[in-house]
């Protein structure tokens, strides 16, 4: 598949859940009277859920928390990981590198879901708290990848040549090393967003960060799975939306990373 076609496909796949999540609440309207649980028809074109609410309305309401939490958590994780990884890759001071990276290794050793559940049981965080928490467990991974990608670039003669020219630290570290690691980091960001979505959904599924009967795609999958064989839409639609979001994001990042066919260098 060519890059532009993949880009279009990715956009199409990601647009459905993203638009539903961001604009859905505007169009949802007033919740109607509750009907019987797990029914089909009767004016509910996706049926009703476990407490008799309209599934379509729930879908419209339930995306915002998942999507915004995941996006915020990924952005936050990189906000910390980028400077930490870059500094520890470029610095010559071994001690500074140890100081920056070792504490993260400790965090890395704790399973992320366990950490989320543990903190959640102590503090009962809201959506913002969940985003912070998920970002925190992603920082060590992201920082290590930033450092590994940057360390390779920082060891190239080009960095020494730039230093020989008297270039500033910023220009060497960000302008060259950061830029050279961009492809690796973009690929990682695509995967990381998927991982974060998975973690946020799992946390919501386990009741962390959202109320047990909240309109939330992940909660919907959890609560409605008892009626899966009676009324599948209440599980399938939110699940499909989450899948579309992750698949679409990865397609988008792939297309963005695929180099446009540039002229090849002259080779003997």
């Amino acid at each position, binding site marked *: 598949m060519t890059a532009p076609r993949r880009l279009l496909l990715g956009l199409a796949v990601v647009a459905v859940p993203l638009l539903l999540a961001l604009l859905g609440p505007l169009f949802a309207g007033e919740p109607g009277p509750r009907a019987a649980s797990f029914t089909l028809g009767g004016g509910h074109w996706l049926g009703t859920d476990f407490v008799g609410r309209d599934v379509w309305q729930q879908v419209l309401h339930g995306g915002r928390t998942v999507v915004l939490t995941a996006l915020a958590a990924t952005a936050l994780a990189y906000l910390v990981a980028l400077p930490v990884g870059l500094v520890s890759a470029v610095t010559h001071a071994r001690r500074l590198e140890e100081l920056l990276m070792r504490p993260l290794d400790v965090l890395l050793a704790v399973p992320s879901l366990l950490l989320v559940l543990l903190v959640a049981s102590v503090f009962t965080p809201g959506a913002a708290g969940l985003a912070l928490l998920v970002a925190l467990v992603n920082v060590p991974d992201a920082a290590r990848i930033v450092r590994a990608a940057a360390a390779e670039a920082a060891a190239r003669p*080009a960095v*020494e*040549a730039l*230093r*020989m*020219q*008297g270039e500033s630290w910023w220009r060497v570290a960000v302008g060259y090393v950061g830029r050279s690691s961009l492809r690796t980091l973009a690929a990682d960001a695509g995967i990381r967003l998927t991982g974060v979505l998975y973690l946020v959904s799992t946390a919501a599924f386990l009741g962390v960060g959202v109320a047990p009967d909240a309109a939330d795609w992940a909660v919907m999958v959890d609560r409605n799975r008892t009626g899966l064989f009676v009324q599948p839409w209440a599980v399938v639609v939110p699940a499909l939306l989450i899948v579309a979001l992750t698949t679409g994001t990865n397609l988008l990042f792939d297309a963005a990373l695929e180099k446009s066919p540039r002229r090849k*260098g002259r080779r*003997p």
Partner: protein
Amino acid sequence: MNDETDPTTPPEPVAAIHGLRVEIDDRPIVDGVDLRVLPGTVTALVGASGSGKTTTGLALLGEYPPGARVTGEVQRPADGRVGYVPQHPAAVLNPARRVSALLDDLARPRVRHLPRPQRRTAARELVLRALSDARLPDAEALLRRYPHQLSGGQQQRVVLAQALLLGARVVVADEPTTGQDPVTKSGIVDQLAAVAARGIAVVLLSHDLDVVRALADEVLVLRAGRVVESGPAARLWQAPRHEWTRRLLGEQRPAPREEAPADPGLPTLHVRNLTAVHDRATTVLRVPDLALHPRECLAVVGRSGSGKTTLGRCLAGLHRHHDGEILLDGTPLPRSLRHRGRDRLAAVQYVFQDARAAFDEHRPVLHQVARTAVRLRGAGERAATDEASATLARLGLPEDLARRRPGELSGGELQRAALARALLAHPRVLICDEITSGLDTVTRRGILDLLAALVRDRGDLALVLITHDPATAALAHRIAVLDAGEVVEQGPAGRVLTEPRHPFTVALRETIDRLGTYTRA
């Protein structure tokens, strides 16, 4: 190597090419090449990089670049067995398997006719014989190693052994000596001569004329995909008919050396009791005393791993772990370039061996070159760009080329750009690390002439040439010879090259003589 063929009956060629034409996007890479490969002889294809040597060589294997349109006739050995020894042999050895496994795989089909219990020992014997034919003596120890545990030369010989095991009747060797020091080079020459002596046809693709001269029976000179001249090596060297051949062969002779300045005065750079360490423990270099005067060119020669590059990096402030003093005009230089400040950073500049790796691949070359003047001399953006493009033009790099990114320039062009980048600092000391290795003779001569002109014209410039190429060293006024991290000999170039004292220098001198590079002007 020709002596084994019977003079009465003309030998049948094992492979031949008639009127080969390879085009990519309607642009011919190889155009009308004819080639006859005779058993037991060495046929050399010479020419600058990009002249179609590799494409022609690969055609003997039945390989063509992707998307190429091929016309003409390629007659390959009946059993199709052609060995190929690439320039970077590591690329064709599976890194996950030991040498023994790599060779056994090829030996096993050849012992299939034997009863099962005998196969193992028979295969092992074949392997050992192939290794000794490829001139790898201590084979037993080597078989247990992985490819990355071998030196480049050993890897090359393992690939050669693979070709011999296959029973190849033609071996194509692509630039086998590029980037090797003279001693290793002469080993490779011996090894290829031994292969030819066994009746195998060797096709040598090279721009290293010393090796071609020492080995080849037949030579084809290629230029831009066409054969400009071909004939027996001896005839070609004595009476080249084509103008291009004459140029290619003529470029080899070293330029007449400029006389050293009469009154050296105060040294620009003075090294005292330098001891450099790697990993804070291993001493890799010891230089008790070394001085560099203005308008002087100092060549630092030695085998790879002798500490030449470390010396250059110490001077440039790129290798911080050393004791002793480096004085610039009598004042000590800080060890790390980070503490050198703008003026002293500009005063000592370093040109990297691998020019491609030393450029930022995302930005145009011109812009990167101009940055030196902006950062180190405080020039304005416009003035710096103008000066950069003037300097690049003087080094033979037109502006439209300089506006491209490094990926679109050839190795020789990038090397000149790297030189321009250092020169824009208006340095007092310029350190050039192997900047001509891997370039063909014409390009190399061009760069060496440039350097000679620079020392002559720029009043106070002093040059440090780190090299293992004797032709490059011949440019220098003084030579320092390094071996295993020690300065074993230093003095005026004429004296060191004509009356070498240290055994290593003597050995170096002998290999140079054997390969016939150094011709005294």
